[in-house]
Structure formats: structure tokens, C-alpha cells
């Protein structure tokens, strides 16, 4: 196991940030810690990296089977990347990347040429060759985050810890960098944990998604598992769009995703519910309908194909029948 966390607790004053976390992460995996803000995901990451510590005696952290619970960050060989880069502004890109090698004690510090070769090699790896003399302020957000990554890799980390690595970037760069990181991880193979509150990012990027809420882990699984078989109502609601519906005559609440709602003509005998199209939005291959149920006053969202929309000739204000592929 690359990283093991056992029964970890962390309290800030009266706020319980982590309430007993157990987690095992196998070698070479790319793991997403996913959750809303305040769920404890960043606290967990910082504790693994040694930038924060659990309550006294409350839990253990193991990296490569070594108990590092009491060890300071400097002795853990955990590469940490921050949301706002935390590059050293007064140092050049090259000096930033070389920092982790330059601060080593003299006896195991590589010589000047070796440091230089290693830093340049890393900059090539993150596709920033030629920019080594620039200052961080002269780079774009995406470039800065790649410098931060190269800097973290310079110490040959046992694990990579990324705290909302794309959080400060705009949508386009974010998407490109996400894809790039996916391939990059495949190439270097270092066990990596990244924190995100963006479900799309977690599902697209990670081998394993750890869904957190209020200081606890709700579910651990592959992206497909957590999306298709949510273990708790929280996971259901947090991952992807979901409608909460009450069927007539039945007291319990159902969860149904927008693409699981089938739209029928109002007179269709298979219709379980009847609704009116309140809003219709069509862009790209699918259309999103906002429907108001006739029996209750609830609304729900439905996604249908453009083809179906055109064939049925639907428009706002129309009455339709619904069939729900309910996954309770």
C-alpha cells in the first residue's frame, strides 16, 4: 500500500474537521478526494503531507508502510502542490524547481551539474523548456501550476499531493490541464491524491474517487461505481444531477437522474406521471426540460436527445407524460 490512513481525527476548536477517516491507497493510483467545502478533504491531504497533524493519539498515517504520523513534512518525501501555486516569487523558474535539491544537506546533495540536469529534465517533462530564466510572475496560471508540479517532483516524492490543483484556473485551461495531468500521471506513475470539489473533474481524472462529507468518507470506489451505485443519499445528490420525486400514493422519496426520465405524449397509457414543460433549453446533442408535475407542485429536470425533441415536436407549455426508470 502506498498510503494508509487509520482512524484519523482532527478538531479545530469545537469543529470536527475529520471524524475517523480510514483509507488505503494502492501504488500508482490517481485518487480524487471529492466533497463540498468544509468536508475535510484538504485537511486530510495536509495531514498526509505533514503540513497539519491529527489530534494527539487520534489516528495514524503510513506512507510506503512507514509510520509517518509524527514526522515533519520535510522528512516525508511527499510532493505537495498548492491551489495558488505557492511558487517562490523571488526565484526563477529554474531555481524554484531546483529548490528541493539545493536545500539538501551537503553530504547527499547532488553536484551543481546534476542539479541543473535534473531541473531541466523536469521542466522538459512538464513542457516548459526554455522558460527556466523567467520569474513566476511572468507565467500564465497553467504554466505556474506545471512549475509547481515539476518542483514537487524534483525531490523524487513517494506520493504526490495536489490541493485543488486547477482551482485557480479558468475553464478552458482547466480542461486542457486535466487531460494533460491524466497522461502525465500515466507516464510517471507516482501515487497521486488530488483534492477537488468539482465532480466532473474527479470522475474524469481519477482511478478511485473518495467522496467526503462532514469529516467522514461517504464512499470509495471507481468513478463508475460512485456514479452508478451511490452508497448514500449524499453521494447521489453530490455526484451528477439528480431529481427527488414522490410518486402519487407512495410516501418514500425517489432519486432519478435527468437522463433516466422518459418523455411520452400526454395521452400515452404507459405514463406514470403527468407534467407540463416549464422551460426548454436545447444546445448540442441533448435538450434539458424543466417539468412541473401536475399531482404535486414539484419540478424535475429531464434530458432527452435533440432527435426525440424534434420528432415529438415539443415546446414550452406542452403537457407530457413521464416514465421514470427509478433507482430508489
Amino acid at each position, binding site marked *: 500500500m502506498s498510503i494508509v490512513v487509520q482512524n484519523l481525527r482532527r478538531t479545530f476548536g469545537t469543529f470536527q474537521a475529520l471524524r475517523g477517516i480510514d483509507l488505503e491507497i494502492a501504488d500508482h493510483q490517481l485518487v480524487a478526494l471529492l466533497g463540498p467545502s468544509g468536508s475535510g478533504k484538504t485537511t486530510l491531504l495536509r495531514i498526509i*503531507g*505533514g*503540513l497539519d497533524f491529527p489530534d494527539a493519539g487520534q489516528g495514524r498515517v503510513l506512507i510506503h508502510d512507514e509510520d509517518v504520523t509524527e514526522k*515533519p*513534512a*520535510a*522528512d*516525508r*518525501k*511527499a*510532493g*505537495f502542490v*498548492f491551489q*495558488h501555486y*505557492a*511558487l*517562490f*516569487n*523571488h526565484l526563477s523558474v529554474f531555481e524554484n524547481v531546483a*529548490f*528541493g535539491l539545493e*536545500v*539538501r544537506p551537503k553530504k547527499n546533495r547532488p553536484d551543481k551539474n546534476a542539479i541543473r540536469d535534473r531541473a531541466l529534465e523536469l521542466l522538459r517533462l512538464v513542457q516548459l523548456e526554455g522558460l527556466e530564466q523567467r*520569474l513566476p*510572475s511572468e507565467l500564465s496560471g497553467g504554466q505556474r501550476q506545471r512549475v*509547481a508540479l515539476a*518542483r*514537487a517532483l*524534483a*525531490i523524487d516524492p513517494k506520493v504526490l499531493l495536489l490541493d485543488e490543483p486547477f482551482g485557480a484556473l479558468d475553464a478552458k485551461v482547466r480542461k486542457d490541464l486535466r487531460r494533460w495531468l491524466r497522461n502525465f500521471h500515466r507516464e510517471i506513475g507516482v501515487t497521486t491524491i488530488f483534492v477537488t470539489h468539482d465532480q466532473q473533474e474527479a470522475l474524469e481524472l481519477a482511478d478511485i474517487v473518495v467522496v467526503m462529507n462532514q469529516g467522514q468518507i461517504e464512499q470509495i470506489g471507481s468513478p463508475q461505481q460512485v456514479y452508478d451505485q451511490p452508497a448514500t443519499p449524499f453521494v447521489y445528490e453530490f455526484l451528477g444531477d439528480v431529481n427527488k420525486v414522490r410518486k402519487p400514493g407512495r410516501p418514500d422519496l425517489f432519486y432519478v437522474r435527468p437522463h433516466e426520465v422518459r418523455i411520452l405524449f400526454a395521452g400515452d397509457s404507459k405514463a406514470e406521471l403527468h407534467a407540463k414543460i416549464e422551460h426548454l433549453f436545447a444546445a448540442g446533442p441533448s435538450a434539458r426540460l424543466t417539468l412541473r408535475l401536475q399531482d404535486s407542485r414539484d419540478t424535475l429536470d429531464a434530458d432527452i436527445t435533440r432527435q426525440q425533441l424534434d420528432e415529438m415536436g415539443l415546446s414550452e407549455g406542452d403537457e407530457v407524460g413521464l416514465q421514470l426508470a427509478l433507482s430508489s
Partner: protein
Amino acid sequence: MSATVRPTQDPLWTRLLLIGCAVGFLALFLFVPLTLVFAEAFRKGIKVYADAITESNALSAIVLTITVAAVSVPLNAVFGVAAAWAIAKFSFKGKSLLLALIDLPFAVSPVVSGLVYVLLFGAQGLFGPWLRAHQVQVIFAVPGMVLATIFVTFPFVARELIPLMQAQGNDQEYAALSLGASGWQTFRKVTLPNIKWALFYGIILCNARAMGEFGAVSVVSGHIRGETNTLPLHVEVLYNEYNSAAAFACASVLSVLGLLTLGLKTFIEWRAGLRRRKH
């Protein structure tokens, strides 16, 4: 002046009135007095001026002033950095108390702080008998003046650094630690370069006050001519003896030291601004 009226533009007469007030005020209360200091200093000719500032008591006052500043400023730079570091980078019980204590010298009259040192270290003071037994003289001697100056100038460096260090946060330090740097390496290679200009600025303000301090130093010095008179005290002694030419000559030396400080401060602000634009 362009013909288009900007929305925030006031009528011409308002602007002239406001600018006139500001300039008039500055001239009356700052520029004229400063010029007068030099005019008075040189009124009886360059010879009298030169004699006044090379006379042995004046020279010893200059040396003492510089000595006191040379001891207290570096110490306060170190204390200031330590206090700012603790306050900005850590959370601990009693943090707001520490912040309030740092501001204390600003709040308390320097004379009061001088008197406190007399009560502590004077012959009749708390530590007086012990100090006498070990033949250490604090009050009416240089150590007391250094202590009083340190107290009065303590807030300058810390106050300058705290807001900056709070704004910078801890991420860069954490990054350095996670890369394997020791605490000292992190401070020297990451924290210090980030606060460099603010630190210089604080040191300069601290130095200006250390050389100019009157109240606290006056209480603990005992006004022994040629021994425990700093420049500001020497100026007062000369003035009280109606030796106004010499008093103004020494005052002009203090003014020059002040102007140099101001020039250095402006230069540093300009450099720091240049760097900010670059970043």
C-alpha cells in the same frame, strides 16, 4: 487640460483652494521651520557652526546617539521579525495580548516608559540593590538609554511586517518544508526575501525614532554632559543656556540625519514599487 469633464472632476476654484490649503499648511508647519533651523544654525557664520558641532560635548553626543541607535535598532529588527513571524504565521493563546503589547510603546508616553525603567533599575528601584552589589549601572548610563530606546522603538519593525506577512500567508513556507528545507533554510531562503523591503522600511523608521527619541531617554540619562547626552538632549541643554547658534547647529545635524532617512525611505519605496510592478 482636456476639454472633456471627468465625472470626478471638481470645479477649478475648489481644486485650487484645496491644493492651496495643503501646500500652505505644509509650508507653514514643515518647510519654514526646517529652513529656519538651518538659517539659525548658519546665522553667525560657518565658523561658529563648525565649532558648535565639533566641540567635544557635541561630538560625544553624536557618538552616543549613533551608539544607542546601533545597539537598539538591530535588536529591534530581530525582535520585530520574531514577533511578526509568531503573530502572522501561528495561532496560539494570548496572540491578541501580544499584539496589544507590541502597540503599548505607541500608546504610552515615552516619559512614562522612562520612569518605569528608573523604578526598575534605579538606585531605589526594584533591581537597584542587586545591580549596585554587582557594580552595574543602568540608570544615568548608556545601558538605561539603550533599554529606553528599545522600548520606545519596538513597534516599528513588527508593525511594518505583521500585515505583510499575514497577507502572504503560509503556503510558500509550507512548500519549502515539504521540499525538505529546514526551518532556518525556509526562513532565510523564502520568508526573508519576501519581507525584505518591508523590513528595511521598518528598520529605517525605527532608526529615525531611535536617533530622535527625547522623552524616555531624557528621564533615564541624567543629562551628564559629554557622557549621557544624546543629540536631542544636547540640543535642549544648549538651548536652555541661551546658546541658540550652537543649539540650532546641533539641531541641523539631527535634521540632516532625518532628511537622509527620509531620502532612503523614498528610495526603498521606489524600489519596492518597481519590484511590485515587475511581479
